[in-house]
């Protein structure tokens, strides 16, 4: 797939935000994203998360014959791969430019700085040496691959244990991990890359650029340093012109950041060591936290009920007490009784309302009371209609509908309440 293009609106927004010293995730100019280091069950396997960028590092070793011109040194092999799950734009065979650039930078940072003692990897001079292979896989691309990859490489190398070997005369014994504990590699120092992104021809500078920020940047400066403030590699790409004091300032910032990151790495290694020694659980299943997806549930946020009591008391204090409606059945004839008021006669409504419309009345709202029908009581009546004529009892609800006018009350409305029984009037006032 082709890379997702950057729209004009995003570019404009990002540049304006950078001019106002605001970053997308709320960081400051010199802030790194959260770094999380987690180790797998095998020695030499780790996952480094720099924000959402994730790199998996795995170290392995093998006994091979050495290079002809370096008979007493071990062999180091670095490989960084951009997995297809990292970004839609990464396809097998597609990302050659970026891949070559990253691999070259990793090699210069780790191999040329001589951070690993290759002499100690020699077993029998000229015949057998250890070949250490570091494989890095990018699992998710959210910017600044090189920093995350360099941290993953050095953490994996520090975490790795190679099988123990002993040489007695001509005999070489390779011990399995069960016979003798595996031995860590001898590492002199830990070089870590720090990236600086430049915008607007070098006017603005950001540390640890995000993927969006990388899209709009003019140039990138990568400084690889260790905690002793020794620069291992420095590279500037993008073709921007940097001033001397800008580069010096960046190196000072890099020194501070590398010190922090090195401390974090040492602490993570120590924690893992402790857990393994105590026999606790270790590995990715323990350290990588599960995140809940809440997108499939419509949870209702709970309503704030802290002041419900005061509000309820206020309402009760101001309102009138409800009317006491006692319904007693009214016996019309043996076998027919009426409980309640029954339904309003809506035909009567229409006739009256027509008259009032003719009179040119204003806005009116006719409210009918008593929606429920006393069906239970009436059915017995209907059933008897089929048979011979019996006495028919018609249950009469109150004929006069209630009318509420928005204009001044007229005589009609005042007449209506007076005709209704006492119960009805009280109810009406409460409704008002």
């Amino acid at each position, binding site marked *: *797939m*082709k890379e*997702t*293009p*950057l*729209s*004009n*609106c*995003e*570019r*404009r*927004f990002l540049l*304006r*935000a950078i001019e*106002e010293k*605001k970053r*997308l*995730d*709320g960081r400051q100019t010199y802030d790194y994203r959260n770094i999380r280091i987690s180790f797998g069950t095998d020695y030499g396997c780790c996952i480094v998360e720099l924000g959402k960028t994730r790199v998996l590092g795995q170290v392995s070793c093998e006994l091979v014959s050495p290079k002809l011109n370096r008979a007493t040194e071990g062999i180091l092999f670095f490989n960084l791969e951009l997995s297809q799950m990292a970004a*839609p734009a990464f396809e097998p065979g597609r990302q050659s430019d970026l891949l070559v650039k990253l691999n070259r930078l990793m090699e210069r940072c780790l191999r040329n700085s001589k951070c690993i003692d290759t002499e100690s990897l020699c077993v029998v001079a000229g015949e057998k040496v250890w070949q250490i292979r570091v494989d890095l896989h990018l699992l998710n691309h959210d910017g600044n691959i090189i920093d995350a990859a360099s941290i993953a490489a050095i953490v994996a190398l520090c975490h790795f244990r190679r099988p123990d070997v002993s040489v007695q005369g001509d005999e070489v014994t390779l011990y399995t991990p069960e016979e003798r504990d595996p031995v860590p590699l001898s590492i002199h120092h830990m070089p870590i890359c720090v990236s600086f992104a430049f915008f607007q021809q070098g006017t603005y500078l950001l540390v640890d650029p995000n993927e969006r920020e990388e899209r709009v940047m003019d140039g990138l400066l990568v400084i690889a340093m260790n905690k002793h403030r020794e620069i291992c590699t420095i590279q500037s790409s993008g073709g921007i012109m940097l001033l001397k004091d800008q580069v010096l300032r960046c190196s000072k910032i890099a020194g501070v950041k590398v010190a922090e990151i090195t401390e974090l790495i040492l602490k993570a290694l120590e924690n893992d060591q402790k857990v393994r020694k105590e026999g606790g659980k270790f590995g990715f299943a323990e350290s990588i936290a599960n*995140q*809940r*997806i*809440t*997108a*499939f549930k*419509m*949870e*209702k*946020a*709970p309503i704030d009920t802290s002041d419900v009591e005061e509000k309820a008391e206020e309402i009760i204090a101001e309102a009138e007490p409800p009317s006491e409606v006692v319904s007693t059945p009214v016996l019309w004839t043996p076998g027919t009784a009426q409980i309640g008021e029954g339904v309003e006669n809506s035909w009567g409504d229409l006739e009256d309302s027509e008259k009032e419309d003719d009179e040119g009345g204003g806005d009116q709202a006719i409210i009918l009371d008593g929606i429920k029908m006393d069906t239970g009581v009436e059915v017995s009546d209907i059933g008897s209609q089929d048979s011979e004529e019996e006495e028919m009892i018609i249950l009469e609800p109150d004929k006069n509908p209630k009318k509420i006018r928005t204009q001044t009350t007229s005589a009609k409305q005042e007449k209506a309440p007076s005709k209704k029984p006492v119960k009805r009037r009280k109810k009406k006032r409460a409704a008002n």
Partner: protein
Amino acid sequence: MAEPASVAAESLAGSRARAARTVLGQVVLPGEELLLPEQEDAEGPGGAVERPLSLNARACSRVRVVCGPGLRRCGDRLLVTKCGRLRHKEPGSGSGGGVYWVDSQQKRYVPVKGDHVIGIVTAKSGDIFKVDVGGSEPASLSYLSFEGATKRNRPNVGDLIYGQFVVANKDMEPEMVCIDSCGRANGMGVIGQDGLLFKVTLGLIRKLLAPDCEIIQEVGKLYPLEIVFGMNGRIWVKAKTIQQTLILANILEACEHMTSDQRKQIFSRLAES
């Protein structure tokens, strides 16, 4: 001895098809087969059980069940093609057996006809635009499918477009338009110049677009804003200042993993400041 043999045969054959009704709300994996309700009676408890043939041809109650995303018809059964939770919706008007679908989480968008999406114009060629919608191919958008289209008011390369798909299947290049069937824009067209575009998962978009979504109501009370949701996982948001826009973008992205309590806390804190 027939029963143990038949049980052994079933276990050899692999997982038996389960009734869809019993699996509702549970996680299903691709490759599972599900039985629809009327087939359960036919299958019976022990699988292929012999039944006496009924002489009166009872019209088998064929209910029309709709197969939603994540499911596919496989003979008489439903075959699961995505992993997620199985859901069912009862039919509203009473005809048919309702809809079954799988709620799955996904970030890559696959164009579907009728979806409203936000696209980025990548190229002009002939009299169509090529618009990137996040799928495997760029969609084509004709010059004339805007309301009031003239030579002057055309989108440029790099602009954001809100439109809907008229053709979207796996065999053809997707095509989109920015007018509805009556020829009116109805909110579609070029999206304004400022504002921020960001990407979220497809499940979150569906949740935000559900009717009565609380998140949107609460966000609307915070700041005045303009917001456009594309079903391809893209959201465009614009508020008065850059700071507010960034806050809104971060909140919407974080809603993926926040519970409603955490969200309420964040909103109350923002409302105070």
